[in-house]
């Protein structure tokens, strides 16, 4: 059996105790998306401010609201750090890369995704050994994608 140290890595606990980019953005102009995990009742809100249009638009600000477990909260926190300042095209690519690491099949996976560096997010790799928790780790990511797809 995988040990809890595979799951609760120090960097994960750090982001859980001190979440980055918590808060709200005025919406509109920011895009707001709500996600929830029907199994556990976790709720998350992603506020996304974009500068520009289309795939070239850049994430100028991102904030996270809601409640969740250490895995969903730390994943959201690390996600916001990784996304700030990135163009939407790269945001989508990173989301694909992350979900693939979580063992989730991604429809639009591209060859180049494999080369994307995950940085701190690599720490969440251990979650794959605890299948029930994968939903926790990807909750904020799916909510972010939902925000991007908001017309």
């Amino acid at each position, binding site marked *: 059996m995988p040990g809890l140290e595979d799951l609760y890595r120090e960097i994960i606990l750090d982001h859980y105790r001190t979440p980055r980019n918590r808060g709200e953005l005025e919406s509109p102009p920011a895009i707001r998306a709500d996600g929830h995990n029907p*199994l556990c*009742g976790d709720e998350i809100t992603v506020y996304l401010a974009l500068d520009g249009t289309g795939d070239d638009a850049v994430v100028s600000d991102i904030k996270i609201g809601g409640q969740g477990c250490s895995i969903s909260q730390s994943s959201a926190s690390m996600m916001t750090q990784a996304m700030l300042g990135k163009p939407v095209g790269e945001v989508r690519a990173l989301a694909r890369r992350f979900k693939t690491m979580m063992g989730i099949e991604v429809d639009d996976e591209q060859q180049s995704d494999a080369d994307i560096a995950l940085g701190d997010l690599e720490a969440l790799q251990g979650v794959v050994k605890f299948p029930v928790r994968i939903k926790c780790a990807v909750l904020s990511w799916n909510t972010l994608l939902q925000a991007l797809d908001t017309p």
Partner: protein
Amino acid sequence: MMLESATIDWATIADEFPILSREIDGARLVYLDSGNTAQKPRRVIDAMSDFMRKSYAPINRSSYRIAGEATDAYESARAAVARLINAPAADEVVFTKNATEALNLVAQSWGRANLDSGDVVVLTEMEHHANIVPWHMLAAERGIELRWIRLTPDGQLDLTDLDNLLDGAKVLSFTAMSNVLGTLTPVSLLCERAHAAGALAVVDACQYVPHNVTDVQAWGADLVAFSSHKMCGPSGIGMLWGRMEILDAMPPFLGGGNMIDTVTFDGFTTAPVPAKFEAGTPPLVEAVGLGAAVEFLEDIGMAAIRQHEMVLTRYALDTLNERFGDDITIYGPDNVEVRGGVISFSFRDLHPHDVSQVLDERNVCVRAGHHCAKPLMKVLGVNATTRASVYLYNDNSDIDALADGLDGATDIFGF
């Protein structure tokens, strides 16, 4: 009442449950999730296996001998259930897929026949989704009004406004024991007040029947839903008990084989209760297992089981409060006279998912989440809780393992 459980050697009860001797990573299984689903004794497993090996056949339709044996086995399970809840007649027990289906049957059959726009159904804030969503569905379909009995701060029903809530109501549907708070509700009183207001009294007894002496006649209830898998029987079968004149007047729920008297090109007539509500091949292996589960529980005695759980629940509440003080918030009443062995809590600032993950490392199985009671979570002001629930096979050592596991959570998350 003296809080001690004598005469039964509880230490040997767990030996009857093969899964409880399983070890994972060299440690024993500590199963504290019986409010979710109960483990199965050897007697149930063997009864189902023997039935499939020796007597498995269709029921109610074939004349060969093993078909007769199968029919007898199925009907004797119905008789056992009737005995367990002191139903006046076995034919008042309808087998369903689970308690959820039983409650949907009530809403779809009785509800559609008797409720129209503006009619009032009264529920409580501590209901399981199974006793909320079927009524929401009916509300969406025909505009019935839902009213809610609120809770007292310690998680009991606040009955001060009951007469107003019941004024003009057609149904009062409520749990006999909360699956989150453990609260035992005053069932007889509620049935009486419902009837005084001219309302049907529907009881969700899913958490109650497996752990208490049940007497549906003493309750004065009209319809009672409960399930097999929470009382040591198999999953896949549930029950609706109802007073015969009520069941008799209700239209059928699902249509198909077994539920008909005759079928023509122009229509059909229904079979008598209970067949009227049992369309298609029923869960007959499961019924046999359920019958064995009822006999197993009867041999120990429901009063003795309740007594054992009261002692254990008292020990759990005291142990958790003494060891963790302000770091733990336990929901529901503290008095074990009015609560069963379901203990939901918040632990420090930890999310229940993280608590249950750490407990799982020690093979302590608890439930984390909203327990299919999201409206109640809102009342409690939380998104989720951790829930430990006990049954006849648990003892103090299981509670100690839970408390030790919570200490482990403290270590990992560094409080």
